[in-house]
């Protein structure tokens, strides 16, 4: 006996295809809506602040006159911040990832570290601010230095980097490892000469995305209390500094309407820095994708 009536199947086909098309449209719509949000956001920032963008804006210190106000201290400060955050977080992140992927035995300690990392990834940035204030600023007497803020931000993005590095290490085919061991290489040689070079694209992309989070974070800086009124550039990691989001936040709370435009211009600078970082990440990702 036949259970499946081909006639009926053919008849129902039409309806099923319509449902398929309908939902395809809905899913596409969802994608477009998110892209639309992004477009509106970028458009508004652009139109608000573009008029204030100029070389002077990049090259001036902050000023009480909106037309003279520049972003130099904040921009350079953010770069200094990155100069601390990038090496610290990448060394700690990649080191942890190597330990977890290559050395850690499957025991409770390892499971604990893993759970801990994924939990840490969800801890709000304000809480990291409280940690940084208590440990780095106060207990270790680093004050409002680049170092104190840099360490705080490093811890904040550490879990993201660890996970990205773990994933890219895990993605390296076992055959490459085998090949290296098969030549009589030791474990550390294999890690340094084969695994890390092959994992670097993934590690870099993950790290850049994490760093771009660090460069835009405001809350921890507020909690740490880094200054905004500053007319010089830091000359070392122990110097005080200010950073882009702090400066933007400060401008936006000024009474004069003109400062809102300055703030918007500051946002453009921040967004350009972020987009540059994202683009670099995307290029690395696409360029090195699946070599093996």
């Amino acid at each position, binding site marked *: 006996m036949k259970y499946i009536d081909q006639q009926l199947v053919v008849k129902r086909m039409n309806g099923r295809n319509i449902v398929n098309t309908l939902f395809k449209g809905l899913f596409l719509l969802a994608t477009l809506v*998110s892209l639309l949000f992004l477009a509106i956001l970028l458009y508004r920032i652009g139109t608000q602040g573009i008029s204030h963008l100029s070389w002077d804006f990049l090259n001036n210190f902050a000023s009480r006159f909106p037309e003279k106000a520049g972003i130099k201290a904040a921009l350079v400060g953010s770069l200094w911040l990155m100069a601390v955050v990038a090496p610290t977080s990448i060394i700690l992140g990649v080191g942890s990832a190597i330990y977890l992927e290559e050395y850690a035995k499957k025991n409770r300690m390892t499971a604990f*570290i893993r759970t*801990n990392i994924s939990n840490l990834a969800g801890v709000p940035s304000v809480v990291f601010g409280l940690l940084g204030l208590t440990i780095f600023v106060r207990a270790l007497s680093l004050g409002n230095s680049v170092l104190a803020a840099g360490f705080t931000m490093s811890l904040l993005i550490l879990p993201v980097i660890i996970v990205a590095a773990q994933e890219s290490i895990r993605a390296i085919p076992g055959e490459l490892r085998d090949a290296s061991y098969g030549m009589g290489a030791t474990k550390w040689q294999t890690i340094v000469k084969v695994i890390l070079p092959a994992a670097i694209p993934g590690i870099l992309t993950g790290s850049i*995305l994490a760093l771009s989070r660090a460069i835009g974070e405001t809350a921890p800086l507020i909690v740490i209390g880094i200054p905004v009124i500053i007319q010089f550039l830091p000359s070392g990691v122990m110097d005080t500094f200010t950073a882009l989001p702090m400066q933007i936040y400060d401008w936006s709370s000024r009474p004069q309407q003109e400062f809102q435009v300055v703030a918007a211009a500051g946002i453009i600078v921040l967004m350009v820095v972020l987009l540059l*970082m994202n683009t670099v990440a995307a290029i690395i990702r696409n360029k090195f994708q699946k070599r093996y």
Partner: protein
Amino acid sequence: MRPSVQEMIAQSKGKRNKKLIEKFIPVILFLIASVSVLTTIGIVVTLIVETITFFTRVPITDFLFGTTWLPFSNKEAMFGIWPLIVGTLKVTLIATIVAVPIGIGAAIYLSEYASETVRRVVKPVLEILAGIPTIVYGFFALTFVTPVLQSFFPEIKIFNAISPGIVVGIMIIPMIASLSEDAMSSVPKHIREGALAMGSTKFEVAMKVTLPAALSGIIASVVLAISRAIGETMIVSLAAGSTPKMDGDFTGSIQTMTSYIVQVSKGDAGYGTTIYYSIYAVGFTLFVFTMVMNILASYVSKRFREEY
């Protein structure tokens, strides 16, 4: 004629170095890996020490069961955490309502319908949304979303839970979309092909095969995104107001746990006052909340993982 390679290898120094390196590297790496554990310990200790001081001044029961949050009151300061929790949940609820359908919809589109090229371009572009500094979102909520909402619903106040909720939702869309897409595209291609070969439409494949198979990953991504929404600070600080309230009203000013911490950090409370210690108690509550969400996420992704 040079000596054979094996002879050169035998002569080469560094054998002993190798042994030493092999011994010490794991120790060093273990220490590095412990940094993240130390960080958690640091956070817990920092928060707990100050929280304990807070509880010597405000009974813990008042904090846990009180329904009025009036730290600055001139008459009798009250520290019942619930209004802040309710405020946080309002924003989180709206954000979830916005982000889950859009995020999962986009994920399905990207993993099931879009061509490889579209996916390769759209995914990183969407991820930009997650990288935009939250302070930028905050102004977007306050100066764009709120006025737009007000033009449709005049009863909405300048500070409300809806506008920051929507914007937090926008911010977490890429998290859900990206992680869910990862989960769905890691459902092996051959399983998908099995379904297509039976005459399924793509929609049927998505709903009946991919989605169920990727469910644990999708739920985990949603839970993580929610935990991010709970911890979001600047958007709510700017656009949600600072009125701790415990009611069902979404149109008026509220206060969340995070925005309270920022309010006090930027504010006037004297060092050593009860208000100063209260931010640690609130921070600790927040920490517990996100911790629970994260444990839930990892439980979900373990418990509901499909075997294939």
